[in-house]
């Protein structure tokens, strides 16, 4: 078996505040094999986004955050790396896509300039002309038909969908082995979101990029992910292959989450309990059920 791209073991996170310490993650374990697309699903506040930021090492830089647990990236324990080596992984081996593409791009630089900056993370001596040629090719890969016009534009001159494609192209520019997508395109309208996700799906499949896909949108997750982790209040409550988990949700919280999706056939939004005793039940692991 090859080494997993990402292996998180028993991750705890707590924040020190004025009133004491608040634990946010209570021992999360998840792993992503090479080229695998793994979704982390949960409601807001469940700990999805902080998990992504811990993988990148962003949260560890906060003085108020305390992170424990093992993070193995391509077999290397990230805690054994120096701060500089750790920093070097970002933007080269790992990259991230954010919720709102238009506000995630710097408003005062052209797309070409921002692309160049990103490429220089991996190739520090890359010239502007070479960068432009490479960027134009990558933009064509995300189905942008006029890459030159887009490269000379500022983010405010492009549509949200266009910016999203630019973000995807940028995120994959340095051929990262792990792509973290934090609710990608949530700020876009549904059709554009679907288009860009299909593009992203095809591109990561082509490049063999592993993806940690963070979302609250079950429909999108079902289309996109190979495996799913359901997170609730800082704990993984259910995990398994997408088909198996959606076909036979085992945990009460997962069932509640699925019931909350409005159906096109009507019937309104299901009445989901805000919290239930049952949500604290132990984790349901579909792989283990299969073995048993």
């Amino acid at each position: 078996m090859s080494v997993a791209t990402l292996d998180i073991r028993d991750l705890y996170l707590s924040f020190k505040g004025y009133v004491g310490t608040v634990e946010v993650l209570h021992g999360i374990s998840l792993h992503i094999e090479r080229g695998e697309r793994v979704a982390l699903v949960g409601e807001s506040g469940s700990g999805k986004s902080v998990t992504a930021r811990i993988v990148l090492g962003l949260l560890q830089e906060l003085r108020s955050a305390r992170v424990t647990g093992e993070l193995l990236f391509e077999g290397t324990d990230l805690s054994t790396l120096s701060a500089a080596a750790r920093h070097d992984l970002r933007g080269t081996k790992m990259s991230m896509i954010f919720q709102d593409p238009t506000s995630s791009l710097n408003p005062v630089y052209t797309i070409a300039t921002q692309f160049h900056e990103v490429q220089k993370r991996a190739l520090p001596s890359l010239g502007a002309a070479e960068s432009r040629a490479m960027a134009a090719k990558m933009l064509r890969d995300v189905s942008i038909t006029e890459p030159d016009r887009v490269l000379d534009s500022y983010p405010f001159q492009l549509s949200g969908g266009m910016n999203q494609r630019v973000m995807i192209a940028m995120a994959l520019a340095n051929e990262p082995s792990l792509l973290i997508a934090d609710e990608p395109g949530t700020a876009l309208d549904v059709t554009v979101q679907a288009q860009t996700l299909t593009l992203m799906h095809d591109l990561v499949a082509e490049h063999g990029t592993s993806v940690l896909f963070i979302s609250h949108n079950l429909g999108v997750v079902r289309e996109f992910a190979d495996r799913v982790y359901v997170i609730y209040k800082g704990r993984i409550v259910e995990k398994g292959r997408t088909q198996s988990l959606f076909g036979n949700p085992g945990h009460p919280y997962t069932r509640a989450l699925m019931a909350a999706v409005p159906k096109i056939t009507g019937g309104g939004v299901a009445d989901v309990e805000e919290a239930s005793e049952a949500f604290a039940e132990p984790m349901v692991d579909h792989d283990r059920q299969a073995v048993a």
Partner: protein
Amino acid sequence: MSPVVRLLAHRLGMSLIVLVGVSMLIFAIARIIPGDPARIALGPNATAEQVENLRQALHLDQSIVVQYGHFVADLLRGDLGVSLYTNRPVIVDIAQFLPATLELVLAAGIMMIGIGLPLGIISARYRGRWPDNLVRLVSLLGVSAPSFVWAVILMLLFAFFLPIFPIAGRISDIYSIEAVTGFLLIDTLIAGNVAAFSDAAWHIVLPAFALAVSGIGQAARLTRANMVETYDKPYIEMARSYGFPDRRIANRFAFRPSLIPALTIIGLDFAAMLGNAFLVEAVFAWPGLSRYGVAVILRKDLNAIVGTVLIISATFLIMNIIVDLLIAFINPRIRHSQRPA
């Protein structure tokens, strides 16, 4: 027409209207202040006839509208009249004193931007840590004391107790430099006199710094405030997630978007230094236009007052246009806007 050209044309038109308004206002105000300028100019020993002759020569016996008409007609010929205080054409006085003030204000402006902006960047980058606290304390001190207080303090500290800098003036008496532009720092270079140049540069440090202190504090505080806000924007989080070094994030990704709102105020501060300069000029015996302006106001020297105010207003407006162009240059939203600015 490109948006920048349109912006420039619009601003120039507006400035012209403002100048006309300012000229009318100052023309009227100068004449409303009590006291007869002819009597003040000629002194208590002049005869009533002499005073009356001068009043006629200055058109003071006619209505204010006619006086303004004469003034505009003269102005269009480039004539601002004769100063009753120096007995020279006002234009000549201004040509002599304006460069000294501009030199002082420009030096102060360079200090304000060159010191204030970096301080603000450092403050925002190390938010909540000791460099931030230090910068905030220092800039608050700078903002809260007026520049003439700084002028006196700096003069006492660095010219009197520690005689590092010269105590007053623009240049030492041993040098005689031919006036070409009136800017000593340029004229000494034209003359090829390096010793005179460094002497003039040495003279300008303290007055310019005294004038700049509050601007430096203001620039640092504004830059910090805007950058702190920018640091919460998603594009900064994205820059972090791409692993850009903190220094690059501060100096490139966060600074430039933050500069846009800060620059407007900094530009106004810069122009306001023209007016604030006179106390600093008084303390350092700097032969500038602000000092001249105060002298002519006290003498009720009508032509000189109107001329000085007009020139200072025009300089103020030009500074504003430069700032607007700079903002258009760093803000693509203005440069590419299809709407009128």
